């Protein structure tokens, strides 16, 4: 039985002028077989979808100003513009209501209510969160993640495709996947961050021989 292997794929900087499916075919097409899983970094998929903005383009509402003052220093929501960007996606009143619910939940020992109701708040990468030239941009989470994965699978002939959010702190989450895959299992395979750091420019990882390892 062939061994499971993780192969990072080096690309140039992808922009909103690129299409993630075409980029995968261009840089990894020849290495992909029907036994492999294609993993794409979530921020790169979002960038190719044009899902980013700059702080200078945002008009901050009063709800963002108030809520931002109650967020601990670490994380994208600690920035006024990260908060505003999330509000544009989730709705300002929904965010405020969820924030109050989250605070009340914490009082009774239930955590994570806010991020469960406002998914974009946990997916947004604030400025500095992405490599240049997007280090001055706020990058949203990808849109239609499952659909994009299905497109990647069909276009490449791979066994499956996922969009993953992985970091060096041993955190891995699968945000979207093609049909028939177990996202928890893929996340555990990616836990050591095979994407590397941003400057390594490897936003695609092929899990070779995944089908054989089932």
């Amino acid at each position, binding site marked *: 039985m062939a061994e499971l292997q993780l192969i990072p794929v080096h690309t140039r900087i992808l922009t909103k002028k690129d299409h993630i499916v075409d980029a995968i075919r261009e840089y990894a097409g020849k290495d992909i077989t029907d036994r492999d899983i294609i993993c794409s970094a979530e921020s790169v998929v979002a960038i190719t979808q044009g899902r980013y903005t700059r*702080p200078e383009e945002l008009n901050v509402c009063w709800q963002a*100003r108030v809520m*931002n*003052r109650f967020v601990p*220093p670490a994380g994208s929501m600690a*920035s006024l513009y990260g908060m505003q960007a999330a509000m544009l996606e989730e709705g300002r009143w929904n965010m405020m209501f969820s924030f109050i619910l989250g605070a009340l939940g914490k009082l009774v020992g239930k955590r994570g209510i806010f991020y469960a109701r406002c998914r974009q708040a946990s997916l947004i990468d604030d400025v500095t969160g992405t490599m*240049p030239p997007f*280090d*001055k941009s706020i990058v949203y989470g990808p849109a239609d993640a499952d659909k994009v994965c299905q497109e990647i699978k069909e276009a490449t002939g791979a066994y499956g495709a996922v969009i993953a959010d992985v970091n060096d702190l041993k955190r891995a989450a699968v945000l979207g996947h093609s049909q028939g895959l177990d996202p928890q299992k893929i996340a555990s395979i990616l836990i050591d961050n095979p994407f590397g750091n941003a400057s390594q420019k490897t936003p695609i990882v092929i899990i070779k021989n995944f089908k054989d390892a089932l």
Partner: protein
Amino acid sequence: MFVLELTKVAAGIIFLICLGFIIYWAIVRWQGDCHFQIMKKRRTPFAVRSMSLNQVEVSCTVPVRNTGKQAGTLMDVFLRTYLPSEQYQGSVVRGCLTDADKPRDDGYWESCIVNQGAEKTLLLMIRFEGKSGNILRDMESFPDMPIDIIYQVVGRSDWYYAKSRIELTAEELRQALYRHTSEAR
């Protein structure tokens, strides 16, 4: 009677809104924000990095410190030299600024988070391209040159640009050139 009750309700709502504003501003004041300061007194003297017959590049470092109460992001940092042709025409002056710990040669500032009380060291590089073929002669008439360090900050309040001025004096440049040429001999 109805008008009186309505007035009371309106007054109550206005009071609550005002109270909300006061509480918000009290939190903002207590919590504070990031505040960046260029530590000009800790600037190193300009020194020659490289020199040829027709050009010379000098550099210095200066720390920027987050003296505020919150972490902040330095979105962009760059420098601007002020030397109009009315004042000096001996050489073409170009300035470049980078993070001294992660130097780049493309003039691009990679945005970074600076925690409360932490510092970044800025590396300032000034290049003079002579016009006569003898850079030492071209630099003889060099006057004092102001240099602005301009930085864009993002924190818990609206983004802003700020700037701080240092100066490359004729005397400091002369000393840097003298040190370099003495060592070369």
